[in-house]
């Protein structure tokens, strides 16, 4: 249960609420407002298996961030948490094993499903 969950979201309250919930669930959470600091944290030794990625980010879009992270850390699993209603998964991300079930639309009135999914991935179980 010591695995880290990485959250990248530029909306502070979303980021912190998610962090708080996951921490309450017992996870260690690293939350960043952009991709660059997250990458910096990973480069400085941060280890995590799950990343909850927002799409609209200040330095790059979520899809590109996932591609970069996937290239650097092929084992990393991703969950997408987006405020965009018209988001659809690009084919190359699907090829990485992502599907619509890993896309969560904001606002989440209940964080439990997302937390559960993140927990399962962090624990090394394949997502249902």
């Amino acid at each position: 249960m010591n695995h880290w969950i990485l959250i990248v979201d530029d909306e502070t309250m979303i980021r912190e609420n998610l962090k708080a919930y996951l921490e309450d669930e017992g996870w260690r959470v690293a939350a960043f407002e952009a991709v660059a600091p997250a990458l910096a944290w990973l480069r400085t030794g941060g280890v995590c298996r799950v990343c909850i990625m927002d799409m609209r980010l200040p330095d790059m879009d979520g899809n590109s961030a996932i591609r970069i992270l996937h290239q650097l850390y092929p084992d990393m699993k991703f969950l997408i948490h987006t405020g965009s209603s018209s988001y659809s998964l690009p084919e190359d991300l699907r090829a990485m094993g992502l599907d619509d079930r890993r896309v969560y639309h904001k606002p989440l009135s209940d964080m439990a499903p997302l937390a559960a999914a993140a927990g399962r991935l962090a624990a090394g179980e394949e997502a249902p």
Partner: protein
Amino acid sequence: MSASPPRPPSSPPPRWPIPSNHWARRWRWRLAFAVVASIVAIAVIDPFAYRQTVGSPQPAALVTAPYSLPPNPELAVPERCASSATLLDRWLGAAGPEPSEFEVMLRYTIWLLLPLGLITVAALLWSWLLRRQVAQRTRQLQRELNERQQVEAALRESEARFRDVTEAASDWIWEMDENLRFTYLSERFYALTGIAPQYVIGRTRWGLADINTAADAQKWQRHREMLERRRPFRDFVYQTGLHGNRNEGRYLKVSGKPVHDAQGRFLGYRGTGTDITEQIKAEAALHESELRLRRIIDLVPHMIFARDRQGRFLLANHATADAYGLSVEELVNRKVPISGVYEETERMLADDREVIESGVSKLLAEETFTDHAGQVRTLQTFKIPFVVPGLNETAVLGVAIDITEQKRAKEEVARMRLYLRNIIDSMPSVLIGVDPWGYITVLNQPAEQAGGLSWEAAQGRFFGDVFPYLESQFEPVRQAIRLGRPIKTPRMTLDVQGELHYADVMVYPLMADSASGAVIRMDDVTARVRIESMMVQTEKMLSVGGLAAGMAHEINNPLGAILQGSQNILRRVAPDMPQNQAVAGAIGVDLERLHRYLEQRQILHFLEGIREAGARAAKIVADMLSFSRRSESRFAPVDLEDMLETVLRLAASDYDLKKKYDFKRIDIQRDYDPALRLVHCDKTEIEQVILNLLKNAAQAMAEEGVPTPTITLRTCREAEYALIEVIDNGPGMDEKTLKRIFEPFFTTKEVGAGTGLGLSVSYFIVTEQHNGRLAATSKPGQGARFSIRLPLTREPSP
């Protein structure tokens, strides 16, 4: 003929009258009276005086007496007078005394007078006798004379009559000598021909002739030969070269016979002649007129003919002959009746006979006739009885008009009329034809339905009476006719039995040759107007959707903060969470008491309110986001049955639903069409629609407290659509509600219970995203039925 009538055979007046003997008779009687008176006087004075007068001389009387006395021996000799006195005395005896002188004188006078009287009487008698004989003879002569006069008169009369006849006759008399030269022409010749006889006398007939043609020459040759052979001839007609005073050659007709004397010597010819110029001209004119008439009847395109009782043609024009494929001569000269199609011929002959026998004309408005080419024609025939001149037999005279084309045209017109009638009836528009005064002339079927009157019943009525809601169109009708262009009244609002209807009304002027008028076309566009307003709404929704899509990210993040924040707060004040207990224990707070405090101060309740409000706002944003067209990428074949079952499970586990109604209490009837399984659609969207319908049904039934709430889910194939029906037995809806349920933000639920977008989103999903249809039928107290129709064939989304 002579103008003078024959004289009546009366006797001529008596020119020799028998002379009246009145005077003679008077004298006779006077003489006789005188004699008798004298004798009486003598007798009275001296009857016996003779005795005394013997010897006295009486010389005068004795001289004349012997000439007038009848033979009397005593009186014959005057010298014996003296002795006679003696004689008298002897016979009579002497008596009395001797007479006186006077007496003697008297006696002698008496004796003298007596024979004188006797002689006078005798003379008178003789004269009378003689006169009688003369009168008798005269009468005889007169009679003879009269007879002769009568004979003469008769002769004269006969002569006159003959003269009159000759003069009055149309013929003249001519005579020729033995050299065949005219010697005599009666006066009639000039009167009739205008040719003076002096031009003719002394010439031969051929010398007068006008010979123009070879036939003429031949004719003359024959005539001349005949005359030279001295044969009688009759009715020789020729044209003279003499013009007389009439300025034209005359046609003469002559007959003649040779004249011979008692010894049989040929003296010449005598005969009669007549001028037949007028007759020939009349004949020529008649012929000309007949030809003209013939030409006219041949020119007439209709069949003109006369037929006898046996069906033989007595007369036929070209058209008739053509119809039989014969020439006019062939047709008329045919001895046997024409035979065509048996029934037709029989019928025609029967008609002929009917006309002939009844003597009444007959009109056959239509009869068929097969001509020689086998073409069936329709004829209109008029037959009248017709007495054949010269034959004294009744035939039938007919005129047949070929109305084949006319009939065809008429039928075509009727067919066209029906066709047009069908066309105008097939139009969904209400069509009302009116005259310039607004009286109905034509209604089509939709108009009959709209007006509740048949065309026949409505004809002639004012259109405003039949269609009260169109009465305002009278002015446009007049205007359209006046201006000659259509006048539109779009989207006229009509109050049809208390319901608001929209109609596009157009008035077209009719510009026929004679009759002007207008056609009022009314299209009920209520449905279109509703659809249009719906489309406007849809457009609104789409713009809402676009707007929502644009700002969703911006709204969803704060909503996320609110929702997630309130969830975290609720979690972190919960007394049973180990992390909470750990932190509370570290800072010395009794979590249980804190929780009680939060409860008592309703802080948790408020937090829950914040969470619900956030969730509702999120729902609204999500619904609004549905009003945007999606790509078809999400379309996939979906198993309807599976999908419906999924939705039923979702409904049963729906958080909102569970909180307010127990979905499990509802009896779910499944009526699935096993043949209908795969439908191409966006599964999540359709699921949302059906779920929405189920939730509405459950909500409505729960509100009404229906004792046995039932929802029937039904699928079936309907033409090109897959039909999914959600039927409940809830309270139903009235018509007004039913019309508005698909409008966005229309809701019958209490404030806060729904977003008011559910059904409009469903409508949008079905109609806009799936090209399907969503319809609702309901009546108050009878539940509601929602029908989703999804096309089975894929069409590109608009």
